[in-house]
């Protein structure tokens, strides 16, 4: 296989430049391949190294993008950033009215029960949607300047973290002021569970943002799938309820346990509502899965990245 026979090694007067770029592609290169520093198609390890370099060298850009995003979310509203706190509260209120009053659910301390799951779910929901769109909305810029596109989904997901963190304010207020008898030290494990969710969301957003460039159907489809996922996850009901309904069904029972949010939301609810340790087994398994997903997502993203400017 001599795909890059044309590429010549760097030598002579060429090597004296400050920035030396060397790109070579063969005739069949709609399969993306890009070469900034060598004439060899980067393998997976090389791609990962490039990706890490992309992120580390453009930290400042990610910070600016996150700041811009946060500023925009509060722009043109009277309440501004207060919405970050009010938003999850209102959503909780709707579910409490819907489930508690209309469907007559008899779960004790129902607002807290709902809120500790709505918050992480809402985070995943909005961060995935923002992440998927993150590359496509920068189409003009991508055609005008060269920059590592990987910063776009990363910035979208990081900005979601800030929103989530603000949502913790009303959660703690609810827990400490209204239901102090439920507060335990296990609450301090929220950041650990959130970290697992962060890695998972980052993988999902990175993968789908790249695919969405080629098939915009992804964002349409994702909207509905996420909605479906919501009802299959223990947000409005407890993990036990779901397990109880599916029982020992041969197909459904394992499926329920395979849902990452079965473990994530279960863990959140354990530490906040039940005052119990998180679902350690599930979290460790999910961490491994999320890291694999993230690596795979970054590899696919980096492979597709060079064609973005052509397709957008």
């Amino acid at each position, binding site marked *: 296989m001599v795909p890059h026979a*044309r*590429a*010549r090694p760097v030598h002579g*007067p*060429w090597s*004296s*430049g*400050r*920035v*030396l*770029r*060397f*790109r*070579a*592609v*063969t*005739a069949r*290169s*709609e399969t*993306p*391949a*890009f070469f*900034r520093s060598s004439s060899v198609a980067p393998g997976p390890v090389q791609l990962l190294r490039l990706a890490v370099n992309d992120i580390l*060298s*453009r930290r*400042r*850009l990610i910070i*600016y*993008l996150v*700041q*811009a995003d946060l*500023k*925009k979310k509060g*722009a043109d509203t009277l309440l501004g950033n207060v919405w970050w706190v009010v938003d999850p509260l209102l959503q909780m209120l709707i579910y409490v009215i819907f489930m508690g009053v209309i469907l007559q659910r008899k779960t004790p301390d129902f607002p807290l029960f709902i809120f500790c799951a709505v918050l992480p779910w809402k985070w995943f929901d909005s961060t995935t949607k923002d992440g998927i769109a993150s590359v496509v909305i*920068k189409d*003009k*810029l*991508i*055609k*005008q*300047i*060269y*920059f590592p596109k990987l910063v776009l989904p990363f910035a979208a997901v990081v900005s979601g973290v800030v929103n989530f963190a603000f949502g913790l304010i009303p959660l703690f207020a609810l827990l400490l002021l209204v239901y102090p008898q439920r507060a335990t030290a296990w609450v301090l494990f929220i950041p650990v569970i959130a970290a697992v969710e962060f890695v998972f969301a980052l993988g999902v957003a990175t993968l789908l943002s790249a695919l969405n460039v*080629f098939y*915009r159907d992804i964002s349409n489809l994702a909207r509905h799938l996420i909605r479906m996922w919501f009802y299959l996850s223990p947000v409005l009901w407890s993990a036990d309820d779901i397990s109880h309904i599916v029982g020992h069904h041969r197909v459904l029972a394992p499926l329920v346990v395979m849902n990452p949010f079965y473990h994530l939301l279960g863990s959140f609810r354990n530490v906040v509502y039940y005052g119990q340790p998180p679902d350690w087994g599930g979290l460790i398994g999910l961490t491994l899965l999320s890291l694999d997903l993230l690596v795979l997502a970054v590899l696919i993203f980096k492979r597709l990245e*060079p*064609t973005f*400017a*052509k*397709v957008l």
Partner: protein
Amino acid sequence: MSSVAPFPFDNPATERFAIRADELGVRYSLKLTRKQTIRDSVVRRVRREGDPDFWALRNVSFGVMQGESLGVIGPNGAGKSTLLQVLAGILLPSEGVVEVDGHISSLLTLGVGFDEDLSGVENIRLAGAFMGIDHEVVEERLAAIIDYADLGQFIDAPIKTYSSGMRARLGFSIATSVEPDILLLDEVLATGDAVFREKSKQRVLELVRQAKAIVLVTHDMNWVTDYCNRAILIERGLIVLDGKPEEVVALHQEHAAQRKAEAAAKGVLQLRRPRPGRRR
């Protein structure tokens, strides 16, 4: 190739390449870019048509020496902007090799990347970060950029309140604040009002003097003959002529006149048919 460039360069022309393109080709697969639906794809498969390709550039080979200023001219859609995108690293060549020796700055269309909700200052910082300029350097040049754009109090207002001329001024000011070795310019000279246009012309000339090599895409033939020491004419993705600016411009104008005549002939025919009684 040791054609001397007395003006506008301070750096004399040398034997070193700044840019070298060898058998460069850029192909757009219409399957991906024209967004076929699954139905279209199936229809193609059934009719046994291949997926259509479009070569925006083909067999393009040229070199730009350190100290040279290359003008790129040609009709609309000939592939001039694609060429600049390849040189800037935005597009990858589908075949061939591009080698670039030096730090590149591209002034492609100005101000498109602005974030509407952010203020002028914030957009300067964001643009700097996108261009990969160090944070400290951006902060250092911030005052100069603001000063040059000359937007007064608007610099702290969101971009969405700007007029198109103000956007162009800010974009121009940001884009020209870098100190590139190799400068790529794409029709950046026609921005803003008359005063700013004159000001921006001076700024571009200044940059042209500093840069080690320039590639300029323009429809303004005076720029090519006045400030370039070489030019290439691109038509339909191919280099038609590579040579002295005067010769290349002459051929371009000849071809343009031909095209105009052909278009006029076609136009008369089309006009005639529906209204036979009316002639020009």
